[in-house]
């Protein structure tokens, strides 16, 4: 039977390691996704709260989240695999096309020459408040 537990604080059975449930909700990742950005149509290989991946340009992707964030001021981190022995790939926010509550945008650049690059093993994690 499904059940619902309403509680403000969690502790272990010995009464130690107290944590407010607000930290459990607020501190948990609200979305994460792993995908191969080097293929023509990237799809999530595994994810939480990710509906799809949009390949918007070379090195640019959009993680379309299923359940919206409450605002666009959430935090995201990204990573991408070093690109075929070339210099680097760095994931970052897209300044020119800001995130929205349902679309989190990632772009990867070669650190050596700033050129946009598609990357394999692309990943993103989002922390913030759900709507």
């Amino acid at each position, binding site marked *: 039977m499904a059940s619902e537990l309403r509680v403000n604080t969690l502790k272990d059975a010995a009464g130690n390691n107290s944590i407010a449930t607000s930290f459990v*909700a607020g501190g948990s990742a609200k979305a994460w996704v792993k995908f191969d950005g080097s293929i023509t149509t990237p799809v999530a290989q595994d994810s939480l709260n990710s509906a799809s991946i949009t390949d918007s340009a070379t090195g640019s992707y959009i993680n379309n989240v299923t359940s919206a964030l409450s605002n666009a001021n959430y935090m995201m981190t990204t990573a991408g695999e070093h690109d075929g022995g070339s210099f680097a790939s760095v994931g970052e926010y897209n300044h020119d096309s800001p995130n929205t509550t349902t679309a989190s945008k990632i772009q990867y650049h070669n650190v050596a020459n700033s050129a946009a690059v598609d990357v394999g093993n692309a990943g993103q994690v989002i922390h913030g408040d759900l709507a």
Partner: protein
Amino acid sequence: MASLLKVDALTGVTAAGSISVTGEGNSTTTNLQQGLTKGWGHFEGSDGTLDDSFNMASLTDNGTGIFSPQFSNSMANVHYTCNANMNSSVVSSNQTEVSIGTYATGSVKLTFRDGGSTVDKDDSVFIIHGDLA
């Protein structure tokens, strides 16, 4: 009324590995287990030791700037996410990079570069999200 629950383990009823938590906006839920960080570490590249960590058994030093954290509890598959970074105060160029590859269920390979060359960096950090086995 304030409430306090003392418990050592949380398990879902319908599915043991799935507990819903109501989001901050009170309108949606998120999966507790899937949202939790499954591993993290802070280490010194100069001596290859973990200063502090969660779910890490050890750190393998594969050569200059190349490290493989070894997980205590394995991931369910190789499609988890890993993010890593280094202390900017110890880099010598504006071209720093952490490449993350060779995803395995029990480890992941991190390669730190500064100005194109692999380097051992102190205050190196990484964090993992995904599904535990």
